[in-house]
């Protein structure tokens, strides 16, 4: 259901493709080798539940309690890299400052309802991992709004949320995925009935603290105060030396005395 954008541009030339084969053979790809898992789930925009996106996560563990995922709009070779998600254990989530917690969403509903799954992996094997995912929290940004037909990654990063109860996910999105992968969310959900969410329950500050979230852009100084002072000092020293401008002396010396 999600739009597959046609990125503008000439198709890749043969020369380019050959270079890329050559370089891939020579170089080390440490972080990519850690990516071991494909998860399919749905995200919606944190300010707009009516905009929902099928999200293909390619995840690697940093350690037992943290995963980092690249999010694509499809599992195919021409998939667009549309965002990132970080997944952490409940223990790590509880160490987050309160101002940070709303940016993280729970996974309990997605896992227990069956809509979050590992394509191609048999149920019993999936469940060994997903029963852990059930207790985790995730933080997701999308940079490319392919669902509204964008051919390019335009605009600001978008905070995304995950499903938290029945009735949120569009039936047609769900059926499309079920049909494509030959699965039934309802059946899988029954198999996952034994799973439990976070030990201390879903934290009240998670999932936006129950509110929507929006990103906005703000212009700022591009250097912090100390660096600006240093910059002005450097300029003053230069001017003083270059133009023998003694009027600058008090200005320069105040930096050394204050």
């Amino acid at each position: 259901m999600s739009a597959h954008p046609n990125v503008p541009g000439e198709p890749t030339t043969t020369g380019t493709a050959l270079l890329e084969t050559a370089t891939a053979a020579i170089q080390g790809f440490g972080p990519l080798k850690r990516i071991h898992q494909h998860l399919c789930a749905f995200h919606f925009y944190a300010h707009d539940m009516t905009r929902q996106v099928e999200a293909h996560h390619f995840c690697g563990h940093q350690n037992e309690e943290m995963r980092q995922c690249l999010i694509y709009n499809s599992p195919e070779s021409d998939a667009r890299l549309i965002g990132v998600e970080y997944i952490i254990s409940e223990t790590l989530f509880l160490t987050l400052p309160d101002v940070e917690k709303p940016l993280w969403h729970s996974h309990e509903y997605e896992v227990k309802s069956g809509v979050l799954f590992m394509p191609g992996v048999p149920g019993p094997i999936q469940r060994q991992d997903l029963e852990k995912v059930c207790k985790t929290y995730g933080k997701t940004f999308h940079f490319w709004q392919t669902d509204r037909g964008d051919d390019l990654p335009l605009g600001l990063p978008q905070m995304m949320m995950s499903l938290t109860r029945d009735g949120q996910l569009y039936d047609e999105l769900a059926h499309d995925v079920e049909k494509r992968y030959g699965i039934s969310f309802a059946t899988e959900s029954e198999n996952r009935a034994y799973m439990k969410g976070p030990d201390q329950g879903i934290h009240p500050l998670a999932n936006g603290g129950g509110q929507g979230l929006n990103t906005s852009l703000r212009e700022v100084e591009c250097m912090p105060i100390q660096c600006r002072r240093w910059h002005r000092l450097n300029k003053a020293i230069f001017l003083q030396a270059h133009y023998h401008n003694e009027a600058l002396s008090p200005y320069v010396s105040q930096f050394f005395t204050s």
Partner: protein
Amino acid sequence: MASSDKSSAPASTLGGDQPIPPGKTMSMERHMLDKGAQMLQSLKPVKEMSQHACTFAIYSHDMSRQIETHHYVTRISQDFLQCAVYDSDDSHGRLIGVEYIVSDVIFEALPPEEQKLWHSHAYENRLWAQIKSGLWVNPRVPEAVVKPELENLGKTYGKFWCTWQADRGDRLPLGAPALMVSPQAVNLGMVKPELVQRRDDKYSISTSAIQKSRVEFAEPEWLNPQADYWKQHGKGFAIDIEPTEMKLRAPFP
């Protein structure tokens, strides 16, 4: 409100001797689960990341902060690349963001409000491949293989969101994504020599030699002034995340 230019992290979550990120090491059971899944799943988009390039980036809201980055690049078309960006190329590399790279043709067609979020690569290319300065280097790839690609990059523009500010000690990805800008030949954009040296030592390369070898690459005739917004305006950008009323189709949460 969470912002890209403010740190919410209390001392307990910042660096020190603790690992970044914190957390228990992986069990044998975990390793086996991973191996099992990996054998059953094709992971096609990951396999499309065919180049690894090393370069430097600067925070637009604080240009005193410069980081070494490792880009894993997928070519979508002759005019568009998408990159997963990590802070190192070893297996513990942290996923710190995403960069998109477009040709000048695509960039010129973007609206001005969009263009100001992008940065040019003309100088970085020199560095990068040092294409004049040699900052962007494909580690361990012979220069002869790399050059044809790099000349191409000189005329591109990039948009880079950093989602994990590990350089300021964040043990977990905190806050809003930060907009990054590229190295430039002028004051705030100059990369600190010690950063370049450290990269050179690690990969046994000489950035200055690479620069010399790329000196013949033509400079782009025109650089769109909307890109590298800080150069014309002296301002960077920060992202804020604020509560808002969510448009619903069902109760939440």
